[in-house]
């Protein structure tokens, strides 16, 4: 890597890295650094500008970041840190190969890449029973993401991400919406994108777009914040003339509820809420999930010490670099959740659910971190009813 490499110069310019004041606010708020990892976002920024010949340092650091966006929130100079990391990873992966220690030995990345096959014939809809109304074609689709795959792969930690997809469709059905669920939907490509595999990511984007078009879809409802970020922010960069409307399930619900006629059955629980980074810091949605929770009678929302803009990451992103520092981040986060005396931890991202559930199960902690965890869609589907009363559409939260 050379100081005058035009590609590096361009990244530095586009991501405002030369505005860095070396104030160190990023490092002081970075969960990875705070848990003791030898990684400093400030130092990486400085090295890249003043000592780009220290390639080993730069390359290692680029793969360490969680892309959680906490530093950007604090940076007084507007450095776009996570996008800078994304650009650097894409560049390095193209020139030096993909790096970053892949969790689960890269099994997830393997299936994501296998999905780029043009001749794929998946059996990904086995979980849709007669109680769910779905369509093969039509104007509105629901994007399930990798939920059917997670359901198999993470069955050993007993995390039910497929329940999020089921409850999302139940909620849509409850509003008399019958979504298209594609039989050949692919992974949205989030994890490949953020680990530098731009080529396969773009292939997935094109394939998903073509599948939607072939089914006559005009609007895609998404529950997972990572899928939402990809479909709404990155897919339009890949597809010329992108014309799909991408809607967050929670915003659709919020809109429908404002029209009146809907209400929620009481849920006498104290709950706390984990802001997913792709929903909060990267898409600016802090209020909608809280508003929806506040509509449930008898539910008390107890905020964690760090919430909203300063919510701490669930410890991992893109399924790389899960290590003891990730674990420390998760343990600290779960302690914060426990400190609220909540009986239920609500999140809105299946990945938060997977990573935090994994940490809860640490046998050495003997269950001291265990806390029931549910997705916002699960909680809402369990309580929603028409204001005259009608049975809720899903099982009640435990």
């Amino acid at each position, binding site marked *: 890597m050379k100081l005058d490499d035009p590609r590096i110069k361009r990244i530095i310019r586009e991501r405002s890295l030369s505005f860095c004041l070396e104030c160190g606010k990023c490092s002081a708020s970075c969960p990875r650094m705070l848990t003791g990892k030898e990684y400093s976002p400030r130092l990486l920024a400085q090295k890249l500008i003043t000592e780009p010949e220290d390639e080993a340092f730069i390359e290692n650091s680029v793969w360490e970041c969680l892309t959680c966006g906490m530093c950007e929130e604090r940076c007084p100079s507007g450095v776009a840190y996570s996008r800078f990391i994304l650009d650097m990873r894409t560049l390095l992966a193209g020139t030096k190969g993909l790096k970053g220690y892949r969790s689960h030995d890269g099994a997830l990345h393997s299936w994501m890449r296998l999905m780029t096959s043009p001749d794929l014939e998946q059996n990904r809809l086995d979980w849709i029973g007669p109680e769910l109304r779905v369509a093969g074609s039509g104007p509105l689709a629901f994007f399930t993401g990798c939920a059917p795959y997670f359901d198999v*792969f993470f069955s050993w930690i007993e995390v039910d991400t497929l329940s999020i997809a089921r409850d999302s469709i139940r909620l849509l059905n409850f509003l008399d919406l019958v979504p298209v669920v594609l039989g050949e939907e692919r992974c949205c490509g989030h994890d490949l994108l953020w680990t530098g595999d731009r*080529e396969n990511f773009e292939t997935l984007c094109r394939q998903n777009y073509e599948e939607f078009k072939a089914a006559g879809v005009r609007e895609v409802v998404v529950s997972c914040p990572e899928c939402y970020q990809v479909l709404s922010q990155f897919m339009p960069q890949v597809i010329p003339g992108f014309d799909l409307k991408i809607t967050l399930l929670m915003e659709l619900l919020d809109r429908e509820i404002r029209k009146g006629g809907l209400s929620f059955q009481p849920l006498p629980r104290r709950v706390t809420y984990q802001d997913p980074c792709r929903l909060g810091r990267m898409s600016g949605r802090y209020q909608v999930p809280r508003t929806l929770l506040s509509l449930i009678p008898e539910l008390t929302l107890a905020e964690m010490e760090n919430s909203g803009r300063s919510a701490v990451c669930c410890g991992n992103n893109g399924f790389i670099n899960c290590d003891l520092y990730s674990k420390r981040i998760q343990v600290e986060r779960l302690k914060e959740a426990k400190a609220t005396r909540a009986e239920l931890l609500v999140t809105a991202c299946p990945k938060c659910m997977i990573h935090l559930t994994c940490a809860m199960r640490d046998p050495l902690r003997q269950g001291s971190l265990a806390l029931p965890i549910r997705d916002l869609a699960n909680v809402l589907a369990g309580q929603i009813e028409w204001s005259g009363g009608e049975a809720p559409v899903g099982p009640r939260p435990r």
Partner: protein
Amino acid sequence: MARVNLLGICCSWSPFACYNAAGMARMELPSNFDLIRVMCIGRINQALILRAFEYGADGVILLECQDEDCRYGPGPEVGHNNVQRVRKLLHLLGIGQKRLVEKNFAANEREELVAALWEFARDMEAMGTNPAKPSQEREGP
């Protein structure tokens, strides 16, 4: 018939002894077959099996010891559990679950091992190439 890529993942103990003995006896093996030797099939995880398909295998056979012969203890059981789990992922991906085969051998079963490899090759050739192959290069170096 389309040429299929076959991969064997072979435990270094009993199955490799069979494979070695078959080689010494100059027994014929399928030509489109590659073998990876590992210390124990317990070393193999779901990711490594999936990776074989990602890298273009049309069929994967795990060659394991008999349960009671494992030099380390749980090897074949680990292999068995991984196969069960990966088969579910293969099913989702539309990669026929039959493309992943698991066989156990005692150290003196060279004929059985060779017969199993031919049977595996015939079955895979009958199934043809695996439809789920990544459309472009996988990971870099």
